[in-house]
């Protein structure tokens, strides 16, 4: 997958939509018997590996799933504390999936509004008046593309650095937003987008863009 995430930020800097469309690499699943030979610790509402790096499980990785069921922060799917659950010999053997901790929705919200501020700073720093603000941020692993409409809504796409055709994808997302969010009478402006049709069409557009976006040299 060459397009990783889509964010939509409203005029006030609030995140109103977010979609991740990639399977994170570097995840390791392993079955353990009692006692657990890893040291786990609680950090920031997550259960992280504190000691015992092995078999692709690294220090700092979080517990993502137990017996195939995704955990929810420090709680298991059925609401028990992960550390307590793993402390009970009756639950073994147990299969645990570890991986890099994913961003929580709270963190995404925070990062989106932070980006909103950076964007404003970017256009203030401009020596010329009426700068477009940040259009692209480049890193070695991804590129962040941002498109702000005349009304102040930001569409942000994180994609592979070699992925092309993002500009037209951003325009397409704008169209999808105006069609399936705004024309839905039950969607209220500036509020989080929870529209099935919007989801479907966005995913479709991402697929099309991924197939169409030809990789440049060096891929």
């Amino acid at each position, binding site marked *: 997958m060459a397009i990783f995430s889509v964010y939509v930020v409203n005029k006030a800097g609030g995140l109103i939509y977010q979609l991740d469309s990639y399977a994170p690499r570097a995840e390791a699943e392993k079955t353990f018997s009692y006692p657990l030979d890893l040291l786990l610790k609680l950090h920031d509402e997550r259960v992280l590996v504190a000691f015992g790096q092995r078999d692709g499980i690294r220090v700092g990785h979080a517990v993502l799933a137990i017996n195939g069921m995704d955990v929810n922060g420090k709680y298991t799917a059925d609401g028990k504390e992960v550390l307590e659950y793993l402390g009970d010999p009756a639950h073994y053997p147990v299969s645990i999936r570890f991986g890099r901790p994913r961003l929580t929705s709270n963190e995404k919200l925070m990062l989106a509004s932070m980006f909103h501020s950076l964007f404003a700073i970017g256009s203030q720093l*401009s020596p010329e*008046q009426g700068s477009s*603000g940040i259009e692209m941020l480049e890193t070695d692993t991804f590129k962040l593309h941002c498109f702000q409409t005349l*009304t*102040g809504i930001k569409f942000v796409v994180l994609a592979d650095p070699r992925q092309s055709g993002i500009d037209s994808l951003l325009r397409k997302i*704008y169209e999808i937003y105006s*069609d399936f969010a*705004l*024309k839905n009478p039950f969607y209220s402006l500036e509020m989080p987008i929870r529209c099935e049709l919007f989801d479907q069409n966005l995913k479709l557009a991402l697929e099309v863009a991924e197939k169409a976006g030809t990789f440049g040299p060096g891929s």
Partner: protein
Amino acid sequence: MSRQANRGTESKKMSSELFTLTYGALVTQLCKDYENDEDVNKQLDKILFFCFLPRGYNIGVRLIEDFLARSNVGKCHDFRETADVIAKVAFKMYLGITPSITNWSPAGDEFSLILENNPLVDFVELPDNHSSLIYSNLLCGVLRGALEMVQMAVEAKFIQDTLKGDGVTEIRMRFIRRIEDNLPAGEE
């Protein structure tokens, strides 16, 4: 809405008559629900509704995104340019007509849109007991809502209406101010 230029991938066409009839049904229902025409005018122009159906102002604040997404129109630098875009692009796109722009005030902050034929009133005859009803007041609300989203406060009102025996339909637009609060970054 009624007639739409190439909708890109899925080019759906809707009969403009269907829209005209729907709009007619909406107005008559409002006339039934409200005692006097003044209230109906207000309802057509503004917010609040007996259900969640957006219209007028509410249509405008949403439609502007659709318009910007499809028309590729850039920033307008003055009110004259805005007037041009409204008449030549927006009206053309959504109603299939191109009103003419006339009667600029000397200060350049007021102009009139002259609609030779208004598709909303194709089949309408105003009965005597609704003489003060501004049938197409929805359009004013749409214009007001849409321009507000691009930082322009305007006043829009009908001053001539073919339904009332005038030769043409005339919408008077007046620029009130630029909305400075909540300005998107980069728009000084």
